[in-house]
């Protein structure tokens, strides 16, 4: 079993108001675009659903307690355009994932990028809006 580690990195980015670049069915203002969270853990479930997918990741804290974080991304077709398949994140897959955290402190964030630790492959859901 890979050792999971918690490395939360809150970065103060620009002080100006910047919209979270998610073209969602809802406003993205509940996520804080001025901060970024980076977590390492194992995939609990990849909820490959419309209008948004959620990648649930179990993250073990320094005290050994496991918290399930949810990372929101676009729906299956946009993920597909980014080359992200449901099978890429089977339960138990170790990953490091980055995103903009929820403002109210709940363990949720937008999914900006993720690295699958077994092969170091990177997955960027936002690339799904590229026209090609």
């Amino acid at each position, binding site marked *: 079993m890979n050792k999971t580690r918690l490395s939360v990195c809150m970065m103060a980015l620009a002080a*100006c*108001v910047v*919209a979270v670049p998610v*073209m969602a*069915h*809802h*406003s993205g*203002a*509940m996520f804080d675009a001025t901060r970024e969270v980076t977590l390492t853990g194992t995939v*609990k*479930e990849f*909820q*490959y*659903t*419309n*209008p*948004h997918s*959620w990648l*649930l990741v179990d993250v073990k804290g320094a005290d050994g307690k496991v918290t*399930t*974080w*949810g990372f*929101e991304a676009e*729906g*299956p*077709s*946009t993920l*597909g*355009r980014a080359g992200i398949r449901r099978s890429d994140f089977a339960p138990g897959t170790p990953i490091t994932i980055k995103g903009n955290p*929820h403002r*109210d402190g*709940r*363990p*949720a964030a937008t999914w900006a990028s993720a690295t699958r630790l077994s092969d170091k492959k990177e997955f960027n859901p936002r690339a799904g*809006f590229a*026209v*090609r």
Partner: protein
Amino acid sequence: MAMLRKRTIWVGVLAVVAAAVGLRFTLAQSDLPDWVAKGDDWPARKQQLQAYGERFKTSDELYQHLRDAAGGGQPLTWSQMGEPAYDWSGVYTRTGGGLEFDLDLAGRPPAKDFLTQVASGKASLATAQLTPAGQKIVQAKAKQLAATGGEYDPISDCRPPGVPRWLTEPFLKEYVVTPNQTWLMNEMVNDVRRVYTDGREHTPVEDAYPSWNGDTIGFWHEGVLVMHTRYLMQGQYQRGLQPDYSEQTTVVERWHKVDERTLQADVWVYDPVNLKAPWYTRQSWTRLTNDDKSLRLRYWDCRENANNLIDKKDDGTSEFKPFDFEKPSTGQGK
């Protein structure tokens, strides 16, 4: 003798009618804009197309003018469906992306104090000529965003975006052309616009009712689909600082395939409540590469996953309902 005189009169009447129809057709044809692709002179061309729309008080007049110019249009046949102009197959998405109704504004970063400028009426994120009522709504949106940093988008509960907002949505689209109807399908919330091209007119006003996509009729002329939409519901062109449109909104669209991968539409929106003049924009969609055929339009419903449910807050912003990261989503076939 009397019979001959009668016949002569009838021939004369018919000649006058034919001449009038012909003249109307000729006049309508002679003043059509030069439908060109975007190029170096696009700002000037765009201005011409804007001015063209402004010549007509209503979208009905513009549509009738285009229909006259096309001699009423030409009915399509099934044998034509394989021709490139009518083969709109494939999976498309909005060219250039962005959530601005006017694609020419996509990707332009707003100035630092932009919200304040818009709130005070000194700037706008739209190319529309707004009435005082339309401007007031945009200013109120700017104030809301400046004060709270957020907003509530009505489509958060998976209701349809509605026309004309439909044109801006950045997800997958598919199009099906048939001789009597064309279907414009948006992946988002399983949304289909039906364009009736079988010669029918709009539903009579006394029987009509507003709906998200309204009532659309159209005709074909030389590979171009000209459409007219009315009986719409009120809405907003997009979230953020895009204006609102009213139930009195009507739309003329001129769709055609400009190359193997690009569908393009010239769009004039008329809305006496929010617009001082019709708002002309050019919309465009690009056919995506889909060699492995993995891109497919799927059913889309907010209830697939409870973690996607959104509430409107008292301050006018939006928030997720409580998350449940323990229970598997219902959208996984479990």
